[in-house]
């Protein structure tokens, strides 16, 4: 069974497209679990490894987050069409973790509301629009990441993935809060540059 092929890079060539859609449709009820099982085998260990690098032994425990992420992924209507499941899984997992922090959850909701009001909405996660535009957006963040120092990356991970405050980051790393703020500002500027060149 080649269902896993559905998850590799998109291509116009016929053989790169999944068998899934060619199955007789009475088999369709079983197909999604097969896809997921494949996905699980292909990515479970790697997702857990990446989450462990971000969260250590937790909390949250990386395995718990990964489990919850696979579950949520399976519920996405169009998960069979997602070409970059790993990126989706990591994002779902880290967002699940952040949802436990009131300050971050409130900030995210506030920003979403204000941007809708301003007619500049962010792409809603896990929607067809998100799936559709994700490759382009991945390229932008990848470009930015290649220009960051390790220190800047650590500050990004601590603040964006772990939701840590400057005080918490300072306590753990010994860096001053002013330095952390400056470094984060510089990292965001790099992101802006990558976006500007990506959109032109």
């Amino acid at each position, binding site marked *: 069974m080649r269902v896993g092929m559905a998850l590799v890079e998109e291509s116009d060539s016929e053989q790169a497209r999944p068998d899934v859609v060619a199955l007789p449709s009475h088999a369709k009820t079983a197909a999604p679990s097969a896809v997921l099982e494949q996905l699980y085998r292909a990515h479970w260990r790697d997702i857990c490894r990446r989450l462990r690098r971000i969260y250590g032994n937790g909390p949250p425990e990386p395995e*718990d987050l990964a489990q919850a992420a696979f579950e949520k992924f399976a519920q996405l209507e169009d998960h069979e069409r997602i070409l970059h499941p790993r990126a989706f899984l990591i994002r779902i997992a880290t967002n699940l973790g952040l949802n436990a922090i009131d300050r971050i959850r409130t900030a995210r909701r506030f920003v979403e509301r204000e941007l809708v009001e301003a007619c500049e909405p962010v792409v809603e996660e896990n929607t067809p629009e998100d799936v559709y535009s994700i490759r382009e957006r991945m390229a932008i963040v990848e470009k930015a990441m290649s220009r960051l120092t390790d220190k800047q990356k650590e500050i990004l991970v601590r603040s*964006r993935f772990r939701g840590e405050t400057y005080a918490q980051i300072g306590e753990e790393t010994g860096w001053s809060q002013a330095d952390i703020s400056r470094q984060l500002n510089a990292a965001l500027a790099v992101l*802006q540059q990558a976006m500007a060149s990506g959109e032109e």
Partner: protein
Amino acid sequence: MADEDQTVSPRHQIAADARRWLMAIYAGTADQAGFRAWLSASPAHARAYRQLEQAWRDLPLSEALDVEIRPKAVSRLRWLVPAALAASLLLCLGLGLAWKVSVAGNEGVPVLAYATEIGKLRAVTLPDGSTVALGADSAMAANFSSAARAITLDHGRAYFDIAHDASRPLTVMAGNASLHVLGTAFEVWKGPSGVRLSVTRGRVAVGVKDAPAYAASLGAGEQIIIHEDGSLTRITAFAEKDLLAWRQGRLVYRDAALADVVADMNRYRALPIKIGDPRVGVLRVTAAFRADQDEQILAGLAASQPIRLERTQDGVILRAKN
């Protein structure tokens, strides 16, 4: 939120402000009313902030952001993980249970109908995984069997991203046009000028009702209009960004018939605009506006075109100026 550097250009200043707002918002220290005021002060502010927020949210998509964080001594964050969900997933994987048991069997599949109200857009995922962005005040029906996939666009517009399936070609019927695809992405718009097809990926073959052979075949970046009488325009190029701006709530036209523009505007307003004179409908218009700015656009049209507005209880009538 002024930057320390006094010599920066306005664009750089806006970018710097966006960064400071984002940092303050996620630190929980932002003045919310101040942010709102800054955001609404200029479209450039809103755009700069949206871009940065998008990149911030997209950070987990990066493979390169794989840095090891030294473990903390004491955790001060509370985490909630839905353990029951996790357990249920293991169960499903382990036992190989079916996921979407509610999906109906193949033959005798009911026709799926989708429609949007005035001013509302809708994202649809079809049974084969194809996605459709349905425009405002639009309706379509899908009928998928094991041998073929058929969609009818009754009215309005839709952007299709069709899953490839060589064994099950897909046909979109709209007016007298039939569009045949395997796996591709394209927009179909139905309006006063006829049925307009714009292809953004792959190839689409165009048939006209009752004609034995395909009338045209279009590749990415190509557009054609099939008129009601079955005649076709030349294949032309189009700007994808402009064409699909409606998905972000904007309408963009280059040298378009006013009748077509008005038909689109009516998909966003309760009281319709009517064209009271055929000479008005054929006027050519180039414009870009937010779908909810229809009143400003009407005023602009009255000022720039040989037309006058007649307001009635049921809406607005565009009449030719004598």
